[in-house]
């Protein structure tokens, strides 16, 4: 069974190579088909492996495949090994399942684009990297996937490169991710130094009871957290994700909603043992998560670009997942990761369909009344909106409530994390229904010459399938309080740490759980109600509220001025430093001048003179300065 693991990544790799190198010889349509088939292949293999896992007893659910011994010398022993356990199973199925639908959707969305082969090549490369990330047993391989998805994301954001702003958006994503990567690499080297291995399973074996400094685990996990924060767009590194929306919408759906951005959550869950040994880090994760969830939700309430709303919504939901893993509800975090992948991909693809139908319009202010023009898109999106708002019966409800329950029992009762979490749930329902009403209801605000039209079926079929997933995806984890057995939690139990607190251990928590569910449902419905009042019944109210709450509204509208802050505190000083280095260590400007004049003289003697009058002297002085520094050092030492 386990010897088919490599097939999961092999298919997309082949797809990438075919599209990347032989692109000239295949048609646009073939290119899309090849890419989709590659992902389909991975999906089938993963599904078969999942069945294989389920056929085994719970404690024995693990397939490993040693691909090759990478560096087997002495104490340096690095193997390249794939590992397929329940956590990996969930991730691979999400990546390949949602990925496949998005590949198919792109057939319609990207039709006629001249760079479509390149697009599919990168999409397959991304899938390959992402699958490596989740299948890796070893930090180096994980890091390869980690860097690889970042690279693909960077390239795909800039896909429509003609636009200067889009190129810059890619750059921002890139830089922020570099900060996160620094944490990752340093953590990796520290862990290697400590445990002499990079295999995460071996590390976990050695971590408990390891003789390390008191702060070792805290430092290492905090460094890993920096990496996770960068990838998953959490405070304070979330600025890149909204800008990343410059890429094509299917890319936003796949990379910036369903898969890559959840890699941070995956990283923490994968190393849950290390994190559980560092309570400080865990508290930090929870705090960062809930604050991000709340702040991003408040920003999403006032954005007017449909993709920006969804982007902040993604940040907010990722915050939810961080909060879950921070309070120790690791399986709930992954559960939400999965349901979120379904409904957020659905929402993005739906938004893409709307944008497609309106010839590229993204402003909410120029939409409205599309309910009848785009019925398929409307209904599927409504399901997505209901799911993310946590309306009972849909997938989002189950995962969200499990997280809130985890937050509640974290400190054995009402605590600020839980409170902020539940407020966020209300805000989420509010801004999602705001989006829904502004797009599909009310008067049509699009320009007269636009003819909104429903998208082709190659786009609506993936939407429909995702809508089913968004409804049904939650039923694998019906909590015990509702009479289910929470299969999902038990499925993941062997690979993640679970926390035991007083309330959770209490004999009968069912009434309490039910009560909390009722509370969160009421809050969500409240959000829906206010959105309905403000944006459907009395559209003028929105303006009034905005005016009355001007300071708050302004803060939210301008995203708390975080971008401006970074620009002033980080970007400009760095530019200055770079300019300084440029002036000091690279005098190309002067050099060019010298050369230009030298060319006109075009005689060696002339060059010599020019050289001697300035540069050589400059360089030699610097050398002498270095010499003096070394002598001075020796004198002092």
């Amino acid at each position, binding site marked *: 069974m386990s010897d088919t693991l490599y097939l999961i990544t092999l298919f997309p790799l082949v797809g990438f190579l075919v599209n990347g190198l032989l692109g000239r010889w295949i048609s646009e349509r073939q290119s899309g088909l090849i890419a989709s088939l590659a992902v389909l292949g991975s999906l089938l293999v993963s599904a078969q492996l999942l069945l294989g896992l389920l056929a085994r007893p719970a404690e024995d659910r693990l397939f490993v495949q040693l691909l090759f011994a990478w560096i087997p010398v002495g104490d340096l022993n690095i193997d390249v090994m794939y590992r397929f356990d329940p956590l990996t199973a969930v991730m691979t199925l999400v990546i390949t399942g949602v990925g496949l639908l998005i590949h198919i959707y792109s057939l319609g969305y990207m039709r006629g684009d001249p760079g479509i082969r390149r697009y599919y090549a990168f999409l397959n490369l991304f899938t390959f990297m992402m699958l490596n990330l989740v299948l890796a047993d070893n930090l180096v391989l994980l890091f390869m996937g980690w860097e690889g998805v970042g690279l693909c994301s960077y390239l795909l954001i800039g896909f429509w490169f003609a636009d200067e702003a889009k190129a810059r958006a890619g750059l921002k994503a890139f830089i922020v991710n570099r900060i996160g990567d620094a944490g990752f690499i340093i953590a990796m080297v520290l862990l290697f130094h400590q445990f002499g291995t990079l295999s995460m399973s071996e590390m976990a074996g050695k971590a408990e009871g390891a003789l390390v400094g008191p702060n070792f685990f805290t430092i290492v996990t905090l460094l890993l957290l920096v990496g996770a924060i960068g990838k998953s767009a959490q405070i304070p590194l979330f600025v890149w994700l909204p800008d990343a929306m410059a890429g094509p919408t299917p890319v936003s759906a796949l990379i910036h909603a369903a898969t890559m951005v959840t890699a941070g959550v995956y990283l923490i869950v994968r190393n849950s043992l290390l994190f559980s040994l560092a309570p400080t880090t865990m508290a930090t994760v929870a705090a960062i998560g809930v604050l991000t969830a709340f702040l991003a939700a408040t920003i999403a309430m006032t954005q007017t670009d449909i993709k920006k709303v969804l982007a902040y919504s993604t940040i907010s939901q990722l915050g939810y997942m961080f909060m879950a893993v921070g309070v120790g509800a690791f399986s709930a975090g992954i559960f939400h990761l999965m349901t979120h992948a379904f409904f957020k991909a659905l929402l993005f693809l739906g938004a893409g369909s709307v944008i497609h139908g309106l010839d590229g319009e993204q402003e909410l202010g120029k939409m409205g009344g599309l309910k009848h023009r785009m019925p398929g898109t409307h209904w599927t999106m409504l399901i997505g909106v209901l799911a993310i708002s946590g309306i009972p019966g849909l997938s989002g409800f189950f995962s969200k409530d499990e997280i809130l329950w985890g937050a509640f029992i974290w400190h054995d009762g009402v605590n600020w994390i839980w409170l902020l979490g539940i407020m966020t749930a209300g805000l989420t329902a509010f801004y999602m229904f705001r989006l829904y009403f502004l797009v599909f209801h009310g008067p049509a605000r699009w320009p007269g010459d636009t003819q909104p039209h429903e998208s082709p079926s190659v786009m609506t079929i993936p939407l429909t399938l995702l809508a089913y997933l968004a409804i049904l995806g939650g039923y694998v984890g019906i909590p015990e309080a509702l009479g289910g057995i929470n299969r999902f939690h038990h499925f993941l139990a062997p690979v993640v740490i679970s926390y035991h607190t007083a309330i959770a251990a209490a004999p009968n928590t069912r009434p309490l759980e039910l009560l909390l569910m009722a509370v969160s449902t009421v809050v969500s419905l409240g959000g829906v109600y206010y959105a309905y009042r403000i944006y459907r019944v009395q559209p003028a109210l929105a303006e009034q509220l905005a005016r009355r709450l001007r300071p708050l509204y302004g803060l939210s509208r301008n995203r708390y001025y975080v971008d401006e802050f970074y620009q002033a505190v980080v970007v400009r000083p760095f530019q200055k430093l770079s300019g300084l280095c440029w002036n000091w260590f690279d005098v190309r400007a002067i050099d060019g001048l010298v050369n230009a004049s030298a060319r006109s003289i075009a005689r060696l003697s002339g060059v010599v003179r020019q050289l*001697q*009058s300035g540069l050589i002297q400059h360089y030699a002085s610097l050398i*002498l300065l270095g010499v*003096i520094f070394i002598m001075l050092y020796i004198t002092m030492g």
Partner: protein
Amino acid sequence: MTASLFYLFAVGLLGASLFVVLNPNPMYSVVALVFGFANLAAIYFLLEAYFIGALQVLVYAGAIMVLFLFVVMLLNVQSDADHPSLPRVFRIGSWWFGALALVFIGLFLLLVGRSALALLAPSEVPPTQIGSVSQVGEALFTRYLLPFELASLLLTVALIGTVFLAKKKI
């Protein structure tokens, strides 16, 4: 006696070298160089390295310096002072470069000065005949054979380079 003679020649050598570097007129510089080489040869003689001393006079002070003089006179190189562009080497930034050089020399003296006592102590075995014909010859063809050959290779390459870069038509 030997010590005082050494200091005399050493001062002569240093003075001559400084003159070479600082004097704007290339003609004077070359003559000062000859003087410096003569001092160096004298130091070799003091060390009883007669052969090397003689070679120093013959090769450097003799042949090479004559070559230098020829080149300077043939090219009719003007004094730096008459040349508007060249002296800028010494004018622009020269005080700054000179100051750096002085700092370097100061630091160097400080470092070496720490071991001044050790340096001043007379060497236990006075060197005798290290530079005789037979000894130089023997060293060159036994222990220092490889450096000798490598040095000749280096000179060959330098020669190729000079010819290649300087010759108008090749």
